[in-house]
């Protein structure tokens, strides 16, 4: 800190006061100045819009004219009359609770395979990561549409193999549409895979060595060493991916646009529709706040239960 006096506050501080408490404050101030770019951004682009949307959630606001206070009306409509609210929640939970575990499982299996020291493993790591680089993009979503279309690649392959006789409308089938979205999500396992890989490298080889001396099989090593040692990473990945899962939007918009009859109406897509298609920004804000509460509760639950299954080496199993 002292090495860089130019960053000291502009007001000169009397020499006597420079030591002790005041000095500490001065240090704090420098710290705040250092984080100010982030802090300003956080206030301007996160906190203020959030509070604004909280206010909007108690209003009727059609974007084009100024908001009008309606109290709890939006929330009342949501819980009493709007059947799309429970429907979109159902769809989102269905998606998050299937896509996320499947994606993590895939990521973990591949991370285990790719953590072995073999020739060319770097190439494989890169290749497996590629889908995640452009996985969230519009282009892939459009490609997915083509892939699962009635005259798409999947149907062509299945028909060539004689599995089906007529093209199936995967994207428009009420029971298949959501699984095309889940499949896309699973395919983008790259980023949790990389985190798993990093986690696997952290595990001390001495543990495996000791296990080998005790004659443990590779299965036992996986169950009794790798997974417990990796559990903080699994916990982290699970949490992050879960939150991501609940915020899924682009793919649902491009690939199925919520259809058929709202079977893939993701919650965030519903918020978007309410806000930007129906011009009910107040109602959309109320929906968004409910989502915040749900994600909050879910995160709390995951944290609470983590003490039962997450193992921290330093903290005596806590």
């Amino acid at each position: 800190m002292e090495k860089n006096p130019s960053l000291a506050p502009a007001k000169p501080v009397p020499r006597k006061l420079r030591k002790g408490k005041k000095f500490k404050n001065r240090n704090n101030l420098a710290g705040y100045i250092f984080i100010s770019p982030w802090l300003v951004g956080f206030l301007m682009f996160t906190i203020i819009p959030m509070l604004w949307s909280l206010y909007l959630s108690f209003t009727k606001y059609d974007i084009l004219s100024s908001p009008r206070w309606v109290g709890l009306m939006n929330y009342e409509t949501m819980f009493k009359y709007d059947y799309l609210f429970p429907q979109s929640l159902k769809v989102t939970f269905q998606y998050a609770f299937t896509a996320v575990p499947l994606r993590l499982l895939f990521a973990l299996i591949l991370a285990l395979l790719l953590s072995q020291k073999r020739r060319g493993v770097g190439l494989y790591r890169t290749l497996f990561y590629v889908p995640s680089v452009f996985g969230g993009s519009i282009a892939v979503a459009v490609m997915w549409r083509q892939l699962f279309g009635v005259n798409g690649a999947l149907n062509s392959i299945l028909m060539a193999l004689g599995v089906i006789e007529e093209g199936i409308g995967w994207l428009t089938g009420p029971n298949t549409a959501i699984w095309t979205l889940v499949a896309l999500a699973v395919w983008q396992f790259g980023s949790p895979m990389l985190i798993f890989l990093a986690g696997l490298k952290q595990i001390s080889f001495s543990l495996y060595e000791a296990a080998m001396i005790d004659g443990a099989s590779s299965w036992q090593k996986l169950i009794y060493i790798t997974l417990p040692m990796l559990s903080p990473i699994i916990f982290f990945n699970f949490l992050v991916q879960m939150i991501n899962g609940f915020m899924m939007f682009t793919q649902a918009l491009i690939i199925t646009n919520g259809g058929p009859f709202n079977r893939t109406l993701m919650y965030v897509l519903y918020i978007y529709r309410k806000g930007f298609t129906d011009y009910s920004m107040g109602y959309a804000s109320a929906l968004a706040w409910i989502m915040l509460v749900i994600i909050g509760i879910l995160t709390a639950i995951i944290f609470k239960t983590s003490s039962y299954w997450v193992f921290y080496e330093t903290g005596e199993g806590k």
Partner: protein
Amino acid sequence: MEVVISEEFRFDCGSLNNQIFGEVFRLKRTILVVLLVCMLVSSFSLVALAQEKIVLRVSWWGSQGRHDRTLAVIELFEQKYPHITIEPEFAGWDNYWERIAAQAAGRNLPDVFQQDMQYLDLYSSRNMLADLQPYVASGAIDTTYISEAELSGGRLNGKLYGINLGSNALVGIYDPEIFAKAGVEVPGPEWTWDDYIEIGKTIKEKTGLYWATQFPGNFFHAFHHVLRQNGYQFYDGPKLGYDDDKLLADFLALELELIEQGIFAPYALREEVSSVEDDLLVKGQAATAWAWSNQIVAMSAAANRPLGLITLPKAKDQVKEGLYIKPSMFFSVAETSPHKEAAVLFIDFFTNDIEANKILFAERGVPISSKVREALAPDLTEAQILMFDYLNLIGDHTSPIDPPEPAGHPEVNRALDDIDSMVLHGVISPEEGAKRFRQEATRILRSM
């Protein structure tokens, strides 16, 4: 900083030779004056530059054909008025309205943007649209060759919120070759829904092709057509304009039956059609496509073979004509636009310039200026002659247009689509669907 230096300067002045510093002072003043003049000149020239260079944002929705034509006209406009640069923004229908909403929220609407009947009420009632009447009165928009009937669609509460870009009506576009192959005679304007089903059946049996992708227009437009034939409006103010749910139930049941018999394309296939270019008629999988008359231009360009036009079927013992002529779309000027004069200049050019209209070629519908129509007549392609003739032909088979849809219509329309697809997937019966739609629509319209 400045203050500190000059104070030091004055202090030094007192202690040293006054004359020298008087000189320096004078010099300083001269420099100051020169600088000031420089600044003034430069700011004047900036103002002059700003007056010279206007950037106008123009936004529209449409297909690739429309984008190409409109961009070419913009280029022509920029050549004629070099001080105006146009920033085009274009998209398909869905994305267009989402973007316009976001821009409206940010008070950042394009200077000139394409407007639709169903949003005219919403945007004008929120003071988003400039009244164009003064510009029509002053002659900035030349209406010498435009009749009042052509302009009236853009009028609301005594103000003119949009200039009609072309007249339009629902139409059936058919492939004559498929009709010939099936040995079916092309129906005249007096045909009925029964004929519609009968011909569909024959086409399916003889050629194996679909009769149509879906009902004329889309489910909403087709049902609207049926309601009009029965003497109802879709909306009566902010509520549904019909009481008998059987009308909707029967229509849903008919659709279900037509799909089951393979006369209509299956739901999955229909849902994949998102632009004129991948319409089943264009791809040679269906005998007809049902759209707005201006779309014949894009459709025949995409199909690249001769197509014909037929009217929508009439109902047996109908109360009134279901067909109507409507302004296909408007150009509106944003109330927030700082360049309204230039915006109006562009609209005038778009409406009245012969050369521009030769490029646009009635793609947005039959032009409203009679002079433009005359000028286009010799060059019209087959598709356009069809469109011009069609609008002349249906004059006797139309009734006046209903008032603009109330706010909340997009949501009601979506509810109708949802219920339609639920019925088609057998989740609910047509009767349940009709009942449910009334509940939903009533709730949505009440909440507006």
